[in-house]
């Protein structure tokens, strides 16, 4: 029974959560309150772990809540429940997209969408940098330009960016190297 509830509830979250990363958070909060699966603090801890491990944050959180509620099978079922609406909806859309992607209206729409997506991806990088790494909010607190940049982080960013442009290695290599540098230099 618990497996059925897990599947159904996470299916609903997958169906109604629109947007990246934390869009599912309010739904998950309602869920744990409704069933009393865990405290809000435990949920926040799980989200923190889900953000700092590989994979989509929503998927990680679903696995976590499912596992804590009903063991390994619970984790698997919650995750499948969350991903199922995406798979169904996207397969339907992909079917029609492949039929119509040569259509002039669709092509011209995507000619506008692509530069906007570049802006979208750029803003994601900006928010990641300003929130987690460079702590731009510190500037507002004490108005001290010295705290504006975390020089260690900025230096690493520049080194990695120059290496990417110069050596053109697989992205995984930069991620793994950064992890090692982070441990050695205590980022």
């Amino acid at each position, binding site marked *: 029974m618990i497996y059925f509830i897990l599947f159904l509830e996470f299916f609903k979250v*997958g169906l109604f*959560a629109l947007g*990246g*990363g934390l869009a599912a958070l309010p739904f998950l909060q309602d869920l744990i309150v409704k069933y009393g699966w865990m405290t809000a603090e435990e949920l926040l801890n799980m989200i923190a*772990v*889900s953000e*700092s*491990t*590989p*994979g*989509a944050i929503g*998927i990680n959180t679903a*696995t976590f809540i499912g*596992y804590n509620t009903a063991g390994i099978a619970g984790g698997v079922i919650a995750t499948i429940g969350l*991903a199922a609406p*995406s*798979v169904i*909806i*996207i*397969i339907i859309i*992909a079917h029609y*997209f492949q039929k119509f992607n040569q259509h*002039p*209206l669709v*092509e*011209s*729409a*995507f000619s*506008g*969408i*692509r*530069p*906007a*997506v*570049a*802006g979208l*991806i*750029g*803003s*994601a990088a*900006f928010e*990641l940098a300003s929130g*987690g*790494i460079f702590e731009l909010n510190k500037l507002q607190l004490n108005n001290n330009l010295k705290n504006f940049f975390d020089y260690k982080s900025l230096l*690493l*960013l520049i080194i*990695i*960016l120059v290496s*990417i*442009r110069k050596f053109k290695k697989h*992205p*995984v290599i*930069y*991620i793994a190297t*950064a*992890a090692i*540098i*982070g441990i050695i*230099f205590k*980022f």
Partner: protein
Amino acid sequence: MKKILKIFFIFFKIGSFTFGGGYAMLPIIKRELVDNLGWIQEKDIYNYYAIGQSTPGIIAVNTATMTGYSLQGVKGALAATTGFILPSLIIITFIASFFKRFQEISVFQHAFTAIQIAVVALIIDIVIKMWQKSDKSKFSFFLFILAFLLLVLFDISPVFVILASAAAGVLIQYLRGNLQTAYENYQNQIKESD
């Protein structure tokens, strides 16, 4: 069958190294499917990501399903999605059973902070490449800057930005007269294939 397995393993790799939102998977998808295998075109990835962003569900899963479908239909979609979510299942189950206080282990924290910086660098690189591959028109540049500023300065929905830019794309191609000629060509192609 061989292609299905390859799709599965590529997305398993992508799932293992995506730190952050769906955008963080784009550099690895591009490297594997465009640069290494040449299975899809670079602009397709951004089309699929835009679709994944504006439909319900987890963006990364949407993008994986969309890309998998374009490679090998429904089977490809299932292989890509399963491959993408499997590392999450394994890693999170492992952490949940062995580390009760994972986020207090400083080694992981240090590694993660530096990984975030690498992700920012990879994303900046992707945005530069998107610009180099674009038509470099003033209109594209305007849309890029406008989308960036709207999203950074205001708490505006990405879905709105995508829909508005789609309308802007149709409008500008119409005003330039490209839409009309493209439409005639499209009609002729359909007649020929009949």
